């Protein structure tokens, strides 16, 4: 089985000596779903953002799809990674000046240099998969949050990525809209997509994930399968966190 | 690797820039030698041999060019200062009228603003000068020797102002007041709606609420806009030349026509305005700091 992500002892400190990441190591194999959980400020967003070079780190090494990066920022390698890794953000981050279809085709046309016909065809196919093909000509501000997030997922899928990163994809959504997005993510997992998801959605984590990584103050506290984590977490702090979430 | 690349890129840019400036200066020197002018400032001490109708300090044609420039400076500062004060007063009235509840006042002030802003300042100045002052019949307005307005200009408590000065002063003030009015309105609008509701619910009158609650909060948003309007006013005052008021630009222009010293005069003009800009900006920054300090006490 191929290893997609291999993180070896990475650390990152903020200016005041605070550690955002403290000696983190992990591994994700192909087709697996890793869910990262933890209280806010625990470094989970920082961790996932190092995977495609949005955050730098001070020590250690990351290997994504066989491409190694270390503390020395290497534009070319990071660019290579970004072309093969998709990312979905909490705030959707669609481009407000482009219509939905243009949002989706922007990268395929300019990064992968595909033909317009092909890019638009595939974009429409993705939109119909997400159940929002009727909005193709609209602009982001005319869509609901759930719809926008589905467009954002379609936008990353348009590049046919080998790994998808989700940074709290449902945190900015109205409660009744959350499932639209989670359903799409479930389907992706079933189709064998390798995913790393930062989320607070316990049910999603229970059903879909292969592994749960629990972080607190920049450290990995525990890594377990969901069965163990949710019923019988090894660590005191994990149990405390889960208790608070239940309330 | 990356750092060397950046360093060389910057070095190349500097060299290109120096090269370009070098070519231009080279051309300039050739042209100056050709026209037999050279480049120096000794001529500043020669007699100006032109008369000025408007001078705060004694001036005669036998005085030097440098003295004439100083007179121009003073004339510029005079009109800028007068207009600055008057346009602020007018601007505040207009800005407040724009937020007034009285629909008629609101409409009139908004018409005033759009009309003034959508016509060129130069045209307005010419209107004030040729129609407003030179077009007047003698003794148009005369309030028992306190305020006289006629073709000789304005006379106010024995302080007589030439028609050129008056036209420039009124034109600049009216023009700038429209912009200041918008700045004031913007500042007032920027204050949260809840603040209006809360002072009203406390039983404060509209006027007290405006003065004690709204305006202090609006000031931080108003000051930067006001600063840039004052700078514009100072720059716009150079249009004085169109109606024959001898400000710093007009005097530079006259000197260039007489002596052909265009480069030197241009340099003087640039320095003048850099200093003027810096002093206005500094002054406004001080005011801003003062307000911010007070704000802390209020909070």
């Amino acid at each position, binding site marked *: 089985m191929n290893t997609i992500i291999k993180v070896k002892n990475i650390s990152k400190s903020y200016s005041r000596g605070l550690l955002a990441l403290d000696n983190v190591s992990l591994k994700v194999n192909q087709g697996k779903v890793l869910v990262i959980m933890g209280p806010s400020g625990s470094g989970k967003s920082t961790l996932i953002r190092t995977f495609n070079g949005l955050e730098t780190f001070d020590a250690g090494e990351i290997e994504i799809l066989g491409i190694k990066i270390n503390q020395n920022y290497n534009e070319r390698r990071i660019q290579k990674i970004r072309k093969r890794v998709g990312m979905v953000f909490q705030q959707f981050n669609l481009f407000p000046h482009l219509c939905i279809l243009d949002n989706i085709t922007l990268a395929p046309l300019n990064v992968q240099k595909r033909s317009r016909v092909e890019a638009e065809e595939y974009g429409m196919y993705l939109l119909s998969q997400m159940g929002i093909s009727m909005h193709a000509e609209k602009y982001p501000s005319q869509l609901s949050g759930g719809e926008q997030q589905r467009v954002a997922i379609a936008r*990353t899928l348009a590049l046919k990525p080998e790994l998808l990163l989700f940074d709290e994809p449902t945190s900015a959504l109205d409660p009744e809209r959350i499932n639209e997005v989670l359903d799409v993510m479930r389907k992706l997992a079933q189709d064998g997509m390798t995913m790393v998801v930062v989320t607070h959605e316990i049910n999603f984590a229970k059903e879909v994930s292969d592994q749960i990584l629990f972080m607190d103050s920049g450290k990995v506290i525990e890594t377990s399968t969901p069965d163990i984590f949710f019923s019988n977490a090894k660590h005191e702090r994990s149990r405390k966190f889960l208790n608070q979430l239940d309330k | 690797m990356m750092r060397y690349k950046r360093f060389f890129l910057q070095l190349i840019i500097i060299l290109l820039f120096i090269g370009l400036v070098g070519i231009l200066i080279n051309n300039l020197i050739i042209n100056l030698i050709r026209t037999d002018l050279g480049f120096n400032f000794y001529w500043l001490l020669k007699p100006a041999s032109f008369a000025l109708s408007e001078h705060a300090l004694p001036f005669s044609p036998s005085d030097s060019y440098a003295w004439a420039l100083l007179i121009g400076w003073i004339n510029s500062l005079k009109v800028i200062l007068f207009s600055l004060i008057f346009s602020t007063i007018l601007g505040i009235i207009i800005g407040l009228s724009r937020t007034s509840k009285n629909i008629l006042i609101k409409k009139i002030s908004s018409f005033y603003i759009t009309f003034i802003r959508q016509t060129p300042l130069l045209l307005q100045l010419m209107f004030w000068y*040729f129609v407003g002052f030179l077009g007047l019949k003698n003794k148009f307005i005369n309030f028992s020797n306190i305020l006289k307005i006629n073709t000789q200009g304005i006379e106010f408590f024995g302080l007589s102002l030439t028609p050129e000065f008056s036209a420039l002063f009124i034109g600049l003030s009216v023009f700038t007041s429209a912009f200041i009015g918008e700045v004031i309105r913007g500042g007032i609008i920027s204050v949260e709606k809840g603040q209006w509701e809360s002072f009203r619910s406390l039983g404060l009158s509209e006027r007290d609420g405006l003065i004690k609650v709204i305006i202090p909060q609006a000031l931080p948003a108003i000051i930067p806009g006001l600063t840039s309007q004052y700078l514009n006013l100072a720059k716009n005052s150079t249009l004085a030349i169109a109606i024959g008021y001898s400000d710093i630009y007009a005097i530079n222009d006259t000197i260039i026509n007489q002596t052909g010293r265009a480069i030197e005069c241009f340099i003087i003009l640039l320095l003048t305005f850099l200093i003027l800009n810096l002093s206005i900006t500094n002054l406004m920054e001080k005011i801003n700091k003062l307000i911010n300090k007070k704000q802390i006490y209020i909070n």
Partner: protein
Amino acid sequence: MYLKKINKNFKKFREILLLNSLNNFLTIILVFAIFITFLQTFNWLIVNSKWTAVTTNIPLFVFGTFPEDQRWRPFIWIMSLLTICFLSIVPPKWKWLRKNLLIAWIGMIPLGIFLLYGGFGIQTVMSRNFGGLTLTILLTVCSSMFALPIGIGLAFCRQSSLFVVKKLSSIYIDSMRAVPLIAVLFFGQLLIPLFLPLGLEIDSVWRAIFAFTLFVSAYIAEDIRGGLQAIPHTQIESAKSLGLNHLQIIRFILIPQSLRIALPALTNQVIGLFQNTSLMSILGLVELLGIGRSILANPKFIGQYIEVYIWLASVYWIICTLLALMAKYLEKRLKIA
């Protein structure tokens, strides 16, 4: 205690009454003043005003001293400008035209130069015969279209991480914004020839366009910079994570979004530029205001100052208002987008 309360209530009552009566009083006075003004203006319009200076010189105001039999050329150019303005505001359904609007806009400059200067089969006209509204529009259109890309470039340079680039553009922008426009225009007219090698001459219209471009680009740069700073950082992050490189982010994300945010400010720059072209009337070009001044200098039309100024003010006012309305409409349309 009780008395105090009554007193207080009474005070409050009086305050409200006074406020309202003051308001009413103001309204009455204003209505009266407006009435008087209207009456006076009406009286003047019917009895005293003489419009011969305007009515007999309309072609002069529009075309300046452009040869009479060639006036169709500036006319065509102005008409095509109007058409393209209209098409930009109310975009047609045809996608190819919408995509090529930018090219059409850029094409307006060579078209204008060809139609005005002539050559290639039509009679050549010297630039000293350009004048009136035609010249005003030529100066505005050319200067703003040259200044926009330069301003965008300067804005990005000022944000650059290269120290030298940043400093040079900051110095340029700040010093340009510190000097009065008339000094820059003066520089264009009198000093540019001094900086050019012998034998190379640029005609005064192009020197004016050059000076306006230098001046306005500094202001546009600051507006664009404001727009750039208003773009949330997350936009750049999401573009990066899609694999777009630096130049692609600038081209597809930063430029369109900053232009959209800066649109109201940019409109004001264009309106300001349109009005400021009138300064060239002091520096020897006979654009719209210059024509007005030369007509007023004609003894035949002596004393018709008010009429000519009112006429000129209305022309400037109408065109500026149209520009402002156009921009408002465009803004509204872009708001969803």
